[in-house]
């Protein structure tokens, strides 16, 4: 989910080659996420099949350029702006999404974080309610309780993280740093350009 959505998110800012997409995603998630390029291409094939991107073989050195379709753009915007439902599977997805989101011009990050906090708090309330109704003395409920507790602690950690980064972003906005990045220059196939700092 994350790879597909991240590709679409980058493509909302302009057409890219496969290698360039990999580079963009890597640099926009702080270099913490290494996607293998094969995965990028298989995902692009699926996106094309589903009508979310279109490709054309353009320039001289025979690279394929991918462009987002109207449908693809709608999907990217939905992913970026709607809160995620918290669970062990979405932990990295949320981090990747927010990291990407701060590099995309025109997104209301504060609103996005706020909506995510509401969503995560509601997930936490749901788990707590289920726990409240459980019988602590019933040994059959123990396995479920252990998992529920892990999810509860994860929700709490996520809420603290969201509150913390809200502060970080508010400060960076106050210093008038605009973290939005333009797309990097297209890289040559097979040799992604090194990031300069």
């Amino acid at each position, binding site marked *: 989910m994350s790879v597909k959505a991240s590709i679409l998110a980058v493509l909302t800012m302009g057409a890219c080659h496969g290698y360039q997409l990999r580079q963009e995603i890597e640099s926009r998630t702080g270099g913490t996420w290494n996607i293998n390029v094969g995965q990028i291409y298989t995902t692009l094939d699926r996106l094309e099949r589903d009508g979310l991107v279109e490709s054309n073989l353009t320039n001289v050195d025979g690279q394929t350029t991918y462009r987002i379709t109207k449908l693809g753009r709608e999907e990217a915007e939905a992913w970026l702006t709607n809160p995620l439902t918290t669970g062990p599977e979405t932990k990295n997805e949320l981090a990747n999404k927010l990291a990407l989101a701060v590099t995309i011009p025109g997104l209301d990050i504060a609103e996005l974080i706020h909506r995510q906090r*509401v969503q995560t*708090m*509601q997930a*936490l*309330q*749901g*788990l*707590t*309610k289920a726990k*409240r109704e459980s019988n602590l003395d019933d040994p059959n409920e123990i396995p479920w309780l252990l998992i529920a507790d892990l999810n*509860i*602690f994860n*929700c*709490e950690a996520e*809420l*603290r993280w969201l509150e913390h980064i809200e502060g970080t972003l508010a400060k960076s906005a106050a210093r008038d740093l605009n973290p939005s990045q333009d797309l990097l220059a297209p890289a040559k196939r097979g040799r992604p350009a090194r990031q300069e700092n």
Partner: protein
Amino acid sequence: MTAEVLIELIDVQKTYGNGENEVHALRGASLQVRAGELIAIMGASGSGKSTLLTIAGGLEVPTSGDVRINDHSLPTLRQKELARLRRQTIGYVFQDFNLIPSLTVVENVALPLELDGMNARNARRAATDSLESMGISDLAKRFPDEISGGQRQRVAIARSFVGPRRVLLADEPTGALDSKTSESVIRAMRKRIDGGLAGILVTHDAKLAAWADRILVIRDGQIVDELKTELRPEQFGAN
């Protein structure tokens, strides 16, 4: 039938100091809490959470607006009536516990009942029950300086539960407790509240706030956000 409103703040403002030192701790806060309902208040430090609670508990007077507890408007009560309402109706857990050092644990918990004219034996029995519900009946005969911070905190909570209270106000009641003890405390609070009390819980801990029916977020003296869980039909009737 909808449960009765036991706590109501209507457009409450609270200003401390004046002139250059003026602080607007609350800027028009309104809320209602019904019997059987627990609400949590969250917000950054200095946002006005404790002020809201002390006003709801009749410990501070609002600069303007009304506070109604169990159908009494606190700003209109005479000192003596207010003191009685506080003793009989409101259980309050302070951020710093407020235990009396020269009294034992069980005497501390029994004190509000004795002040109210209950005989010592019955008061002590009720206090022992309350300590039991906090899992600390073994501490009954110790003095506050002979127990740990976490234990003192549970004694303060036991005191807020004791007797026929209708309203429970708790300011960071689990601040010094580990997460397992916090959970048993909130479980006990929730159980008392399910029995028909109205409660307000101020907390930083989202895990605790999640036990509430609603979560209010306060910022700069204003309630800026509200989260709701679905109302439990068994408590709120079919309305």
